[in-house]
């Protein structure tokens, strides 16, 4: 399995911009979970471009690295990344929410490059442990990355799975927390506080690193040499901004799931490119 290319930061920034455009375009005609998708866009672009040993031409290679998106509602970021890197046709994103394809609000395996479905929070860390255990049983060198939400850490099954990962000394497992500070509708620290999160994860047996989830150099260091401690699972807490790239949406609790008008989408695309500020009037805080 080939090592990923060492793309320049400039190239990664261009990829991220393109992924964000895809996310914005998926936020109409039914909408999507835009805030969480934008917070992890840089993370996914970095992982797919510089970290994961995978090839779009060998999706079933047993020696590939695995990425599991446990907080599945941010899947537009993954769809966008897979489209930009050639795993799926860009045109397929136009089928978002349509019955003739399987590009819907949560991940599923009908989309090439997606390893497992999610949507119910708190599941894929345990699935990732199963994959990592099997890799170790077979003497493989591949790694398993599980991207989890910070709000998802409310689920008891996450902590149960962390106990098990520690008990198995799974150092081929990397938990990546998209620490965008929000649950669905409320700041995590105002509802069920997670801090000190790094200490909690360390106490559960993880080697913990915190990183700016939008800084490609910092991400390069954090993911540069894994595992961080031999015999321990790794946790990387990526500090991110929900809605990153769109000031009208950034860090606003009510911009979780949104179904924008086409006009608003055009304004948001302009805002993404820094040419104008969007004026948004669509209902926010929709229940999905």
């Amino acid at each position, binding site marked *: 399995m080939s090592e990923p290319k060492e793309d320049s930061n400039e190239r990664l920034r261009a990829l991220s911009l393109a992924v964000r455009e895809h996310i914005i375009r998926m936020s109409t005609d039914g909408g999507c979970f835009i805030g969480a998708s934008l917070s992890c866009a840089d993370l996914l672009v970095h992982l797919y471009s510089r970290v994961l040993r995978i090839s779009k031409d060998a999706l079933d290679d047993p020696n590939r690295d695995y990425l599991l998106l446990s907080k599945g509602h941010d899947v537009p970021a993954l769809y966008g990344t897979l489209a930009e890197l050639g795993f799926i046709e860009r045109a397929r994103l136009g089928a978002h929410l349509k019955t003739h394809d399987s590009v819907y609000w949560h991940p599923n395996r009908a989309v090439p490059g997606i390893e497992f479905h999610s949507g119910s929070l708190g599941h894929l860390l345990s699935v990732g442990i199963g994959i990592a255990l099997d890799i170790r049983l077979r003497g493989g060198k591949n790694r398993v990355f599980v991207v989890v939400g910070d709000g998802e850490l409310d689920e008891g099954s996450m902590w*149960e799975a962390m106990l098990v990962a520690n008990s198995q000394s799974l150092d081929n497992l990397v938990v990546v927390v998209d620490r965008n500070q929000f649950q669905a509708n409320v700041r995590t620290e105002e509802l069920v506080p997670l801090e000190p999160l790094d200490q909690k994860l360390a106490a559960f047996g993880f080697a913990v690193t915190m990183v700016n989830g939008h800084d490609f150099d910092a991400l390069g260091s954090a993911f540069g040499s894994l595992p961080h401690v031999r015999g321990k699972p790794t946790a990387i807490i990526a500090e991110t901004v929900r809605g990153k790239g769109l000031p009208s949406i950034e860090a606003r609790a009510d911009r979780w799931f949104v179904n924008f008008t086409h006009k608003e989408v055009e304004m948001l695309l302009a805002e993404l490119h820094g040419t104008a500020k969007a004026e948004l009037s669509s209902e926010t805080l929709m229940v999905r």
Partner: protein
Amino acid sequence: MQTYEQFLAERARTDQGLVVMTAENRAVIRNLPAALGPRFIDVGICEQTMIGVAAGMALRGRTPIAHALATFLTMRAFEFIRTDVGIPGLPVTLVGGVPGFLSEANGPTHQALEDIALMRGVPGMQVFCPADREELLIGMQAVLDSRRPTYVRYAAPEPAVAHREPFVIGKAETIADGHDVSILVYGFLLAEAERARAELSSRGISVRLVNMRMPKPVDEATIVAAARETKMMVTIEDHFLTGGLHSIVAEVLLKHRRSARVLPIAMEERWFKPALLADVLSYEGFTGPMLADRIEKAFRE
């Protein structure tokens, strides 16, 4: 005859993909850590995580057999079973220990009386309820060969009856033929049902005894034939009345547009009195002679 764990150890020697998992419930597989080495995985008292891990291993081509007490396996981990095993239809075998009356004196927390209702509600999930050790072992062989998600309602007492028919997925086993009453039963209660059949026979009532070893996929033809060819049907189960064999029979008969006189013997809207098994059976009216009395009374009404 092999024990359950001897069977698993032997199967594991030829099937390199087999892994045995448990949520710290080793009673019937206590010697497997030594026999299987790293292919024995005990996750601790973490039923949900065990199912997620089993799904992950199945994605990599393994055949996991996951053990926990039936009540915690099918309820604590239900959503993981439905979502991580059921949706992709992964070949994970779920083995639920001490189901139904077999939880004896543990009390209602441990009484799996809805496990069949829950597991058969998962699309694609097979449900296997062995009556004794012989049937458990031949059924496990078929279940593992099927490579389909399956719930096994574990029971391994000494053989209840002489099994007459080969184990086929989706087929019931007719133990004895008769024309007055058909008794449909599964699990270890087959032994009590056989005692009831012999007793009824001595009282001049001809009984067909059917071992419904697989509630799903269910043997519809055998149920319809019992409705057509006998005067009364009886379902016997250590399960809530809702969602178990009685419900299955009702669904099948409705589907085939048949009506029948059916006596359900099950736990109706309550848990059973916790006690040692023999005392549970007496208290709840499930011993062979008590079943015979209940059936004769209904039949002669």
